[in-house]
């Protein structure tokens, strides 16, 4: 995204973050699928990064992480650190490659969730949490990623729908659309 994000977009992201975090801890966490609960926060942060860029993605990750840690009385800073990294790199993917494939949100959601869960585990090990690297832990991470991948597309549709009105028109995307529709292509002009 070129330039600073509009205040309207930031308000939309903040509202979406609060709603998703409370929906996560009030509903989603209490509905186990394959023995694990889906985690909407890495999906939300990755998709905000994918839509709005690395800076907005990182800031959203920090804010959502802080809210999660505060609401769930967890060690402050752990989720912020993890989600900041997820949001930043999802945004960088958009800025560097701008992928347009239909399955991009699915892959970004899966990669974001996997990165968040692995990074989270690494931070917990570094903090000295008394738990071994076990098959059970690996199973929980893999199942968590699978469940998040399953719900990635609906979450992407929801995030996109909520933010699309606040996103400025992307010049690169506009140019690409113009080429494909014919009239404005330099080739057609010659």
């Amino acid at each position, binding site marked *: 995204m070129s330039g600073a994000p509009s205040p309207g977009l930031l308000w939309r992201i903040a509202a979406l973050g609060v709603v998703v975090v*409370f*929906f*996560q*801890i*009030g*509903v*989603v*966490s*209490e*509905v*186990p*699928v394959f*023995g*694990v*609960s*889906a*985690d909407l926060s890495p999906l939300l942060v990755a998709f905000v990064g994918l839509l709005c860029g*690395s*800076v907005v993605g*990182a*800031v959203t*990750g*920090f804010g959502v*992480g*802080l809210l999660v*840690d*505060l*609401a*769930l*009385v*967890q*060690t*402050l*800073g*752990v989720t*912020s*650190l993890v989600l*900041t*990294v997820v949001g*930043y790199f999802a945004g960088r993917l958009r800025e560097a490659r701008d992928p347009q494939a239909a399955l991009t949100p699915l892959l970004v959601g899966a990669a974001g969730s996997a990165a968040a*869960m692995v990074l*989270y*585990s690494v*931070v*917990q090990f570094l*903090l000295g*949490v*008394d*738990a*071994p690297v*076990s*098959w*059970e*832990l690996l199973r*929980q991470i893999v199942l*968590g990623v699978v469940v998040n991948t399953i719900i990635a597309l609906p979450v992407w549709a929801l995030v996109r729908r909520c933010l699309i009105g606040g996103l400025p028109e992307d010049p690169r995307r506009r140019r690409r659309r113009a080429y494909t529709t014919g009239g404005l292509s330099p080739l057609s002009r010659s």
Partner: protein
Amino acid sequence: MYDKTVRRRRLVLALLVVLSLILLTAYFGEASSGGLHSVQRGFLTVVSPIQNGANKALKPVRDLIGWFGDTLHAKGQRDELRKQVSKLRHEVIANNAEKHSYHELLALYKLDNQLSVSDYHPVTATVVAKSPNVWYSTVTIDKGESSGVRVNDPVINSEGLVGKVAQVASDGAQVTLITDSSVGVSARIGTSGATGIVQPKVGDPNDLLLQYLPANTQANKGEYVVTSGTVSSPDDSLYPPGIPIGQVTSINEESAYRSVNVHPLANLHDLDVVQVLTAARGSLPANLGQVTASMPPGRQASASGEQLASVKAGGEGEGGP
């Protein structure tokens, strides 16, 4: 222009990462009465009513989603329950015969209300939040200091032991579940009476291990494990005796001490309503907690019914309950 954008982007990332690390280090290093913990408790106090309202409003959604999963499991549960009903019917017949002699013995030793759950002033609470990841076996409830809930109070539900209170705000509290690595519960096997410590099974946070049992302990699959009513350290929570924890699933005989795998009775993935056993100051359980805290570590595990009786007698002598 491009360099400026790149520099700004990297600066923001570095700033946020450093900020997270500062928060993390400060939080991890400070005591539970520190500033960041206070901010967190304040936040919990503010959002507890909101979480409570949202929890009630979203219950139909949760129930609807849960209905699909429940239907899938219903058939298997029905078959298992039929087997259990048949087994329990035989046990009831046998237990009725023992019940009469049990009551006679209980009256003989005047032990019939000692350390019953009602002595702990149970406070019913609703679970309003739950951690989504495997690292935190905690839930948040809607009752706190204003309802008499204190740190280390035992938490139960209709199925058995759930955990203990870890942190308290004015209208909310954080409960650490028995599957958390920080929790250890003194427990005994229902029929043999062998006592040990129940802790989460290493590598499987959803299963428990009853450890440090004598080498000659006999236990059968399906036997119930209940709280013994003793504590193993001054920091432990004192759980009333006889609260069911789980059922024996298998026995390990590979070390000098015997241990058994225990499957928790309480469905910790589906907690809705729980009870916090809030022992009021001066009551029998609170007195017992003080006595065990002042004992040397080796003696604490052996706090027995004899000591409970002496504490009760002392409490009554001082005008206790």
